[in-house]
């Protein structure tokens, strides 16, 4: 199948048809699920009422715009961020297991957020800063521990799994040592949850993620080029020493921003890039399908978490763990058999 050639003046791009179709389908799915999310609640709203609420009319506009819309927005945006973070590390490690939640970056970001809460008893700013610092420290630790005259993708992943286990234990320990009130708040959050997310919690996250997505869009061609191996990457003009730290920053930044607001939501970053890649029939691990798949997955998981035991709303992380865990075991089995 010939790809689509888009040209206007000096601006040009090449898009594979299947990638375009898959992306459009994912956007449609995200919109449909988004509408469902706005309709669903203790009281169902009709799509007509939702539209009326957007137009500023109707009785349920507060419920829809102030309660449900931030939650749907958070699910879509955070899902996309996790998809991008997963694609970043899967491209860097050239391995489907290389995902921030597997190699301990979510756990590290959460450690940072916990320490910020317990030690600094800080607000959203301290939480976000702690989360990003924790994620970066975990990434640095994993990188240094797996360095052995170069970086091997699988070695990095195995060490990352160990770091993840250690940090998860540390996190439990911090929660146990914390004061009761703090500990209870943390425990609800530790599985990764979008319950009660409002616009106030989201604002800074939206701004940070928009910047990170923009940066990733600029870095994406070089990142895909670097997957050809260091030799081809350098000889075709990729500045690897500048690219790698920036790409890691995007990956950690996406993970940590989500963790700061919603806690560690695992397995979306692992699964979304691979599902997106297969849907798009694309080479390597492309970012746009990864982001769109992540958005659809997290929103679907969050809706399921709300509906399953309604009116009790489960943390969305419980859903992603239940479904993603089985995928992880299958992948682990497949990858270790390959090498």
């Amino acid at each position: 199948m010939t790809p689509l050639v888009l040209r206007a003046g000096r601006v040009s791009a090449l898009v594979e048809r299947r990638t375009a179709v898959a992306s459009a389908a994912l956007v449609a799915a995200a919109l449909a699920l988004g509408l469902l999310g706005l309709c669903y609640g203790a009281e169902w709203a009709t799509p007509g009422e939702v539209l009326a609420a957007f137009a500023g009319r109707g009785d349920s506009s507060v419920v829809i715009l102030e309660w449900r819309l931030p939650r749907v927005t958070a699910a879509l945006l955070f899902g996309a961020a996790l998809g991008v973070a997963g694609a970043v590390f899967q491209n860097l490690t050239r391995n489907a297991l290389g995902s921030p939640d597997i190699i301990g970056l979510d756990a590290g970001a959460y450690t940072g957020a916990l320490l910020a809460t317990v030690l600094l008893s800080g607000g959203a700013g301290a939480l976000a800063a702690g989360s990003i610092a924790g994620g970066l420290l975990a990434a640095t630790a994993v990188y240094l521990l797996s360095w052995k005259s170069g970086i091997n993708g699988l070695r990095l992943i195995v060490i990352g799994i160990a770091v993840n286990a250690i940090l998860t234990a540390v996190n439990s320990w911090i929660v146990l040592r914390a004061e009761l009130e703090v500990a209870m708040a943390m425990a609800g959050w530790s599985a990764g949850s979008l319950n009660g997310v409002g616009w106030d919690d989201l604002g800074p996250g939206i701004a940070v993620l928009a910047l990170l997505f923009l940066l990733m869009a600029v870095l994406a061609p070089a990142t895909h080029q670097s997957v050809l191996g260091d030799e081809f990457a350098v000889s075709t003009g990729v500045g690897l020493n500048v690219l790698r730290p920036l790409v890691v920053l995007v990956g950690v930044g996406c993970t940590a921003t989500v963790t700061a607001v919603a806690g560690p939501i695992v397995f979306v970053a692992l699964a979304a890039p691979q599902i997106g890649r297969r849907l798009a029939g694309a080479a390597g691990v492309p970012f746009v399908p990864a982001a769109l798949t992540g958005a659809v997955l997290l929103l679907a998981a969050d809706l399921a978490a709300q509906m399953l035991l309604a009116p009790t709303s489960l943390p969305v992380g419980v859903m992603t763990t239940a479904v993603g865990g089985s995928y992880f075991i299958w992948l682990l089995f497949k990858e270790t058999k390959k090498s």
Partner: protein
Amino acid sequence: MKSRLSVRNLTLAYGERVISSGLTFDVPDGAFTAIVGANACGKSTLLRSFVRLLSPAEGAVLFDGEDVSRTRPKALARKIGFLPQSADAPENILVRQLVARGRYPHQGFLSAWSPEDERAVTEAMAAANVADLADRRVEDLSGGQRQRVWVAMVLAQETPYLLLDEPTTYLDLAHQYQLLSLFARLRDEGRTVIAVLHDINQACRYADHLIAMKSGAVVAEGPPSEIVTAPLIEKVFDLPNLVVPDPHTGTPMIVPTV
């Protein structure tokens, strides 16, 4: 001798381990240069320093008088193309997609597929004889086909200089000669080809200029017919031998006498 690529007082090292020191020579423009020598004599290391895969411990590699380690990465990649010994193809990639990756140094964020890119990829696939494989997945190809796809990718880069690190390894005899003939044709069309070759007889047959290395140093350089003698080959490869004219081309041919 005209030369755009030259090496000045070049010392190459991996950490403390010095591979070559004080190398100085010019690569002739528009010629096929072959670098030969025993295993681990520093020939691949030398080639890697031309494309900044290794920064010199001392001295410099100059292109048009400019130190390559100070040239902007994409600007250098529009002048010198490099075919490494091994490379990774992303999973699921099609031949035309991989060849298009050679256009990376010519592309910008907004101009990701110009008519120039399209023409260069089409021509490169035709030159490397992979046009009929365009829509095949790279992982489904045979080793020989795959090597031609990588060559096409480097050709799509459209650089006046072409560096090849043992391009014929893993290929059967017929494919080896096909590939070398392709490089000779590119030389005839005006490109400068620099190849690390294992087979000294192939090097003598195809190269205009030979650089013989031993333990990181250049022991002889010049046209094969002028420099290749039995004592030189014995010195470079530690192999007693006879040099006779190749019955087909008349170029020097080495016959081991062990």
